[in-house]
């Protein structure tokens, strides 16, 4: 078990290391220098050279890479090529915003998906189950940004119940914060919930056909109780996998949703950085998002160990 843990940890560290190379590599294969990109084609050679010197972009690539990675390890993300501001503090703010979005919508997705998925599985031969299943199929087909636009059209434009966009930090005005949070979280959470519900459904369907459920029923457990006592934990194994994979999708969804609702999170930051051609900022934010995904994958592996005793024993 400890070996498995260590090997997963090693994979995590290796993946992070390779990610830094990939992300940095992308920026290096670039034709011309980041300074030229930042300043635009019309900038004078002198100003480009000056920017390069200021940010050490004239040093060998290897040195720049080590410098960047060293900075990452100290949470020093460097300074923006465009605004020259320290990146770390502004990313920290944006990260907080994105975390609010991602965490609340994941919770919402789970709250929707688990009961709904189980219900769809248990009633898969009845009209109600088929109907729910069809609805969830439609939910899966709607991208989060489309859900966002449609929700705004309905609740903000038509009904005027909720603000169409904007962001207020919770410490400033909790009521406003919540009002503005509702629609983006609904857009992300409903769609993720639909996707997840389908996986819960198929996992539960598979488990329902297992022999041990029949054994449990032969003991005298009623079908639903047998499923809850014996099935859910086993069904959780594939669902947790998907949950981990979905997080990457959710992060991307958040990037797009932040654009729809004009929320100053990492996604908006990333898109702004792309628009401003601020490559160091792009590099940092992408690295941050990738790190988040990799860490979640690692946590998923740990969850397996908790759920499945077969992985815990020495084999």
């Amino acid at each position, binding site marked *: 078990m400890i*070996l498995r843990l*260590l090997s997963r940890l090693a994979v995590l560290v290796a993946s992070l290391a390779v990610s830094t190379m990939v992300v940095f590599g992308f920026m290096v294969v670039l034709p011309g220098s980041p300074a030229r990109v930042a300043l635009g084609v019309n900038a004078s050679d002198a100003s480009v050279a000056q920017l390069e010197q200021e940010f050490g972009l004239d040093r060998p690539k290897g040195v720049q890479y080590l410098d960047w990675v060293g900075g990452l390890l100290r949470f020093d993300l460097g300074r923006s090529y465009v605004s020259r501001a320290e990146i770390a503090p502004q990313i920290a703010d944006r990260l907080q915003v994105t975390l609010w979005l991602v965490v609340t919508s994941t919770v919402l997705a789970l709250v929707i998906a688990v009961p709904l998925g189980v219900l769809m599985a248990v009633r898969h031969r009845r009209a109600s189950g088929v109907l729910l299943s069809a609805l969830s199929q439609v939910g899966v087909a709607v991208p989060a940004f489309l859900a966002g636009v449609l929700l705004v059209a309905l609740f903000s434009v038509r009904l005027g119940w909720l603000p169409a966009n904007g962001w207020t930090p919770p410490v400033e005005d909790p009521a406003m914060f919540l009002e503005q949070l509702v629609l983006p979280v609904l857009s992300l959470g409903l769609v993720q919930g639909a996707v997840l519900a389908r996986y819960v459904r198929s996992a539960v369907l598979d488990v329902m056909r297992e022999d041990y459920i029949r054994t449990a029923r032969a003991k005298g457990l009623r079908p639903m109780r047998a499923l809850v006592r014996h099935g859910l934990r086993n069904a959780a194994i594939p669902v947790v996998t998907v949950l981990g994979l979905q997080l990457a999708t959710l992060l991307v969804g958040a990037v797009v949703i932040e654009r729809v609702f004009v929320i100053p999170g990492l996604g908006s930051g990333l898109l702004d950085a792309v628009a401003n051609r601020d490559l160091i900022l792009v590099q940092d934010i992408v690295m941050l998002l990738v790190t988040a995904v990799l860490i979640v994958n690692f946590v998923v592996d740990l969850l397996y160990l908790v759920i499945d005793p*077969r992985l815990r024993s*020495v*084999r």
Partner: protein
Amino acid sequence: MTDPSAAPQPPSQAASQTTESLESDAIASRSNSGDSVASAVAGNESSIIRLQDVRREFRRPRRSLLQPGPVVPALRGVTLDIAAGERFGIVGESGCGKSTLLRIIAGLDRPTSGSVQVAGREISGLREGRLGFLRDQMQLVLQDPMSSLDPRMRVRDIIAEPLVAQGKPHPRTRIVELVESVGLSADALDRYPHQFSGGQRQRISIARALAPDPRILLADEPVSALDVSVRAQVLNLILEIVERLDLTLVFVSHDLSVVRHVCERVAVMQAGEVVEIGPTDQVYDEPAQPYTRSLVAAIPHLRTALEGRTAADLAAGAAAATVPPDRPGEN
């Protein structure tokens, strides 16, 4: 293993090669107890398959960073000699190594050490690409009629496969001849495996095995997945073909009664070793080894049951010898 002399090597591989092989020979000859068919010891001119101290070890995944995973011996020094034209059985319970042994004879797996000779040629060191002569001479019938035929191939392609794979001509007449020789009609050739019953699929498997005109037929539990009413048909077919084509048959089974019907000589395996070897009737009627005795005593037999043999009697028979401790499941 209760008979200490029959346990030649401790699980560690400390013992030297020579001692071990001597001891293996010793088991073989002793358990044959002077019978004239005692050909297990090297030296029989007519032997077509000869195994010398064959060992196969599998390495489990490592449990610690510091040392490699534990080694699990599947075969602990098997020495066998199978004569040309002989019907030879290998029996044992799950995990005893009988299937590993068969795969090694078939050149589908390589022993960790020891020598495997087929028709006088050493095969244990050869790469799969150099086993052409073996594929010519030796063919295989496997256990599971559901999984041993490719569901996406027509029967004619399945039967022709050994010929196609070896780049030999495979005219339709030959394929028809093969399929008819196993009791199916030629119109079976254009159909797919799922259109056949278990017994018919085993017939197709046999036709495929016969395609390259082999001299040796290896059968791995060929009837254990079949219904009783179909089992007899397939056993008859195998025996008839072996006789007609003068094949050497190596028949692996967990079922001692089936082996008794099919084979002249049998090797009983336990925990990677041959514990007893001899003429089938003798092994069955007067088992020399406690393990063989328990194996025979545990079989629920219709006739003895009607004579009043109960489950308690079976259990007592099974427990008479030391049964290896239940091994953890393999999954």
